[in-house]
């Protein structure tokens, strides 16, 4: 039980990741898929941020009288990852808008059936 509680952040990560992946796989709506993708990516952000926490440490800003800091490196990495995520989402949305324009729908099944009938 102690293991379970002590590692609760990982459980959050796993739940988030699985939820995200599930949405990506199970939903036919292209926007919802992107949402799922974002949730999935968010789980990774949580993973990085949570394992950079040093117990008892403060925010990594140098100041007098503080010598225990959280590890700042993962934060920086995740900043980059977030930017990548934003770019991906923006691009994905742009594609969805174009798809909507060309196909008149953003439901995967409809798009498939239109492609098949061609």
């Amino acid at each position, binding site marked *: 039980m102690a293991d379970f509680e002590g590692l609760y952040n990982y459980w959050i990560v796993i739940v988030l990741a699985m939820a995200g992946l599930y949405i990506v796989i199970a939903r036919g709506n292209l926007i919802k898929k*992107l949402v799922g993708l974002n949730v999935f990516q968010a789980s990774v952000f949580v993973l990085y941020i949570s*394992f950079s926490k040093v117990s008892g440490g403060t925010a990594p800003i140098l100041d007098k009288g503080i010598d225990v800091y959280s590890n700042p490196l993962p934060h920086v990495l995740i900043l980059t990852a977030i930017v*990548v995520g934003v770019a*991906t989402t923006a*691009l994905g949305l742009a*594609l969805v808008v*174009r798809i909507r324009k*060309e196909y008149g729908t953003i439901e995967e099944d409809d798009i498939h059936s239109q492609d098949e009938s061609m």
Partner: protein
Amino acid sequence: MLKAHLPALVIIIPLICAALCVLLRRKDWAFTVALLATWASFAGSCLLLVRAMNEGVISYEMGGWPPPFGIELRVDALNVYLLIIVSGIGSVVAPYARNSLLLEYVEDRAYMFYSAYLLCLCGLMGVSITGDAFNLFVFLEISSLSSYVLIALGFDRRALTAAYQYLVMGTIGATFIVIAIGLLYQATGSLNMVDISERLPKAGYGNTTVIAAFAFLVVGAALKIALFPLHQWLPNAYTHAPSTVSAFLAATATKVSVYILLRFVFTVFGVRFSFEILPTATPFLILAILAMFLPSIVACFQTNVKRVLAYSSVAQIGYMILGLGLVSVAGLTASIVHMFNHALMKGALFLVLGCIFYRIGSCHIDRMAGIARRMPWTMAAFVGGGLSLIGIPLTAGFISKWYLILAALDKGWWYLAVLIVISSLIAIIYLWRVIEAAYFREPPDDLKEVSEAPLNLLVPAWILVLANFYFGIDTSISVGVAEMAAKALMGAG
């Protein structure tokens, strides 16, 4: 003086020029800048090759921060091999793009195409050269994002769905990789790949974090590689993308992903962990064999020639993974050589298809009936590339096959050698369908007006075709460097 900074220059030149293209905006200027950038990058890679051969591993500290703290650019035989592939193909494809239909389609936004193209090149080069795991992810995403854009430029609306599908799959793959990197960082406290590999034994091979990292990495990389059965995105993407883009991506993107897999499995995790402690070799072999056969068979039934080639790419990836799964210097040499040779042959074939598309507006096998009479040089190039894909002696494809079979026999697995051979025979079937259609069928009436493709499309295609023959005869560079790289990879464990 600049020579010392070559590792940085080969990636920042495309980056700066990508930005310049956007600022200049004029189509011709953007074209010139892109051309110069790719060529400069290629020249730089060649110089790096010479340096790496003479001096061994070159390490370049970004910002002057020594590794493992700073980002290190690391050039060993494998890195430089990839750099040559990527920048070489990049510099052949760049002039090709100018006259292809692609730019007429995007009209006044041609500079955007060049910008995305250079960014993709920059990303792929970056992945190949960086010694830092997280940096690798960033470059990977740079290349992936720009390749989604490039694919979406296709003429058909299905290009959009293909790009979307690739985006979703690619992002999942990249996120898996980033999870793996995070777990590795957690286990070792380092992001420098060499440093991680040194610290891993201390973390303990039984460490579940490390095992989880390994699993995430392999799956993520397999998604990016389009390893069977995770290949679904690839045929669509390559079929509907503009031929220029298909040629560039087919020749480079999957190779770079294979590099990621090789680099992590062999250098970072090490042979001992990857293959002795974990039973990874057998799954790789099984997947590789499936990949060699099923997509090839599917390719035989396709009517769009681009799709035929796309499925063939999935099959060819099987060969690379097979070499990896053999876990021997010979096998790895075969894998690495095949990356190079496959880049040459698929690049050539897709460029040829671009020529055909330029004239007849389709790559459908029925539309290509009798085309050899109208476009003899184009189809001759197709035959040349096809022969290499089949693996006829004196072509590059033969060399890869030779090493792969040799590696299989070396292990005493003759049945594997037989499988390799049989699968390569399937290539004859799917290619010969195209060749028969082009040479034997009567051209339809609307094909009467079609003439030979313009020179600036033909020349790049022929350069790659001739390269196929050159590297089938003189293998001292292609095999020599690959062998060094393979030895380094195996030695690292």
